[in-house]
């Protein structure tokens, strides 16, 4: 396969950046998308040009580190992570446009690498159960209905890649935030801090500069883990009931 890559290059966060075009030959259909970029980078390095920087790590679709807005869609044409996307999803001779995630809360660090620490700060605001190590009850002390545990797991599968933000026309982080709020609101272990958690995490989400939710469903459609927007509805419920009834004035 021969391809033309139109890639966003930006030296650092203060650089203005722009697109550069690279032809790549000898692309095999069995390559993953990132391996195709590896090949490009090897060629660039040999030529003495700065390789294209992009985030990646596990390359098996679970760490959430890879990103890339490929041909107008986060993680490319399939509903999966970029590392699990293979070149057989593209056609010989195609031009592929590769952009970084675009959001105020995800500033570009270099080329296609963005800073997603805003997600960490949302979790730090309340995405946990306040228990110290040790002194906890036996694991089977509190039964959890299988249906509830399954729903919690559906939400907990979020890999924090940020495709939801990238896909959303408002760069909203509702799907990410709601996945964690849901997981802990569903489980008995999360009940004690249920209200405070919803209030604090939503406040942090807003403080990071993400947009609001227009319920377009784009996040759900692009989420590589298929996290459902029912979680957003649940977070809305949690939040509204929290602000109405919590003791935080």
């Amino acid at each position, binding site marked *: 396969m021969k391809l033309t890559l139109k890639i966003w290059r930006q030296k*650092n966060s203060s650089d203005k950046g722009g697109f550069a075009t690279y032809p790549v030959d000898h692309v*095999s259909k*069995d390559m*993953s998308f990132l*391996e*195709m970029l*590896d*090949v490009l980078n*090897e060629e660039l*390095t040999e030529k*003495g*040009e*700065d*390789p294209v*920087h992009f*985030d*990646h*790590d*596990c*390359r*098996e679709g*679970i*760490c959430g*580190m890879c990103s890339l807005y490929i041909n107008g869609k986060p993680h490319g044409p399939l509903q999966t992570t970029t590392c*699990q996307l*293979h070149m057989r999803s593209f056609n010989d001779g195609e031009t592929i446009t590769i952009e970084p995630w675009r959001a105020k809360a995800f500033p570009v*660090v*270099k080329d296609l*690498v963005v800073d*997603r*620490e805003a*997600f*960490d700060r949302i*979790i*730090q*605001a309340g*995405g*946990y*159960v*306040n*228990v110290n*190590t*040790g002194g*906890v009850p*036996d*694991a*089977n002390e509190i*039964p*959890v*209905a*299988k249906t509830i*545990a399954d729903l*919690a*797991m559906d939400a*907990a*599968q979020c890999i*924090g890649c940020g495709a939801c933000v990238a896909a959303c026309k408002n760069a909203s982080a509702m799907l990410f935030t709601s996945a964690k709020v849901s*997981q*802990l609101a569903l*489980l008995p272990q999360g009940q004690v801090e249920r209200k405070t958690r919803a209030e604090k995490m939503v406040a942090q989400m807003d403080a990071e500069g993400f947009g609001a939710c227009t319920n377009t469903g784009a996040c759900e459609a692009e989420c590589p883990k298929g996290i459902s927007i029912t979680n957003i509805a649940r977070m809305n419920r949690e939040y509204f009931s929290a602000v109405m009834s919590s003791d935080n004035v």
Partner: protein
Amino acid sequence: MAEKWTKHKFNSKLVNPANKRKYDVIVVGTGLAGASAAASLAELGYNVKAFTFHDSPRRAHSIAAQGGINAAKNYQNDGDSIFRLFYDTIKGGDYRAREANVYRLAEVSVKIIDQCVAQGVPFAREYGGLLANRSFGGAQVSRTFYARGQTGQQLLLGAYSALSRQVATGKVRLYPRTEMMDVVMIDGHARGIVTRNLITGAVETHAAHAVLLCTGGYGNVFFLSTNAMGCNVTAAWRAHKRGAYFANPCFTQIHPTCIPVSGDHQSKLTLMSESLRNDGRVWVPATKENAEKLRKGQIKVSDLKEEDRDYFLERKYPSFGNLVPRDVASRNAKYVCDEGRGVNETGEAVFLDFRDAIKRDGKQVIEQKYGNLFDMYKQITGEDPYEVPMMIYPAVHYTMGGLWVDYNLMTTIPGLYSLGEANFSDHGANRLGASALMQGLADGYFVVPYTIGDYLAQTPPKKVDESHPEFAKVAQEVKARINRLLTINGKKTVDHFHKKLGKIMWNHCGMARTAEGLKQAKAEIQELRKEFWADVKVLGTNEELNLSLEKAHRVADFLELGELMVDDALNRDESCGGHFREEYQTPEGEALRDDENFAYVAAWKYMGEGQAEELNKEPLVFENVKLTQRSYK
């Protein structure tokens, strides 16, 4: 032995609660071991600085563990106990682990599950609401807790949430995208680290009363492995060069069910869950001729009749069949491929066939059990395993070796600890399935919070600070090394060297090793290392995000570690667990241990640039288990 941990905890010195806030602890790496340790220590009151080279602690490769986590809860009433988990782990490790450590691991395993559930980890449940278990990796009891196929993810996110909570309280200061470059020693004690900010390139120093290395395994020395791209040995290796012994480096685990290599572009290998072997049958063509025709596409799989297929595991191991342990399955796959009977274009793959299972149980049942794995396989290879057999090949998966630690998880450098896969402690020569998660969390939540107190209680709380000249000195050395890498201006890329090293290691220090091959490998590595330092091409500057520079550091360390692995493999004139020396096998081709001469931990001491490392032996004494030969016939 059963009392040892309790007594040890009682005999350990304690740090007064009011004094804990006077102690600073550095935690490098924020995977299962690091995040759990950082959170637990901060809860106790210590001031913690946590470092990760990722953008977030949630990216650590612990996240990729699929199968589950073992714990001796005996919830299933099937005869499990702490002693049985201990026994299975020791035996599975082919009697090359320390009894006391393993017993402690089994003992605290039960508390891990309680802790994770309390954190809101959504483990699989039965309809009655209690926790579900499954048997895993050929264990005789169901003791594995799981969260779908993403147990590692859920446990890591649990530890990450505990860590995040401490970051919010201010007890943990988190340094993302910051890589540890060296350890700083003052008066023989570890007193801090030197780091590089991966975005700005700033070389910074951090002082503390103790340093914990929770930096994972070194499987990436093979270039291709199931490890994440960023996994590296740098932190552990830097500590080793400062005096920490490196134990059993040659003990690497090869996992039999990975998706085979498809070409030179391959960057990593993807693991398919071991559970596939419950229903899939492993085979290759019975003759070389057919295998060759198959590789060239002259015949199709369906052209091969029953008698043309060799179900080699079932043939050789009638009682365990396709469920033999990882090392046995891997080695036999290698043998048939070496005989020229391998499949795939490369000839380095065997079939894992679900045809009979689908015929027996129906497609629906198989889809329920393995649907997601089949989808993943299809996505990666483009082939539908419902129609044609899967192809698999072994790949490096886990490294049992690592920094030598004592019962307190302290390395030979006072004040320097090592946790999780980074240390050598609990798995001997072979790790059982679902035990890696258990060890990482045991070390972080339930061991180091106790044992570190014993050391700190004997350390004056006087502030150590970065103004000590030793910090400036080490920082200077780090900068010089960066500078050296950036100014070689050679012709070959970092990956070029990494790939070459990987090939040497895989061919000579992989699934099967020989003295001759290892000697050849040693020479080749030395040559390659020289070439690296003369001809590597690292572009860009230090003062920016520079992936080639990061990688160059890591590969430089792999080039040194690789030689030590070879030395260790050469020294160990026996076969045990993941270490298989072809000279030492039973007439049936099984691993032949030499308990007389090699029931010890090989702990290597760095002696200086270009010097042979010194071997120290920690004898292993088995008082509670009887050493037997593993047999799966």
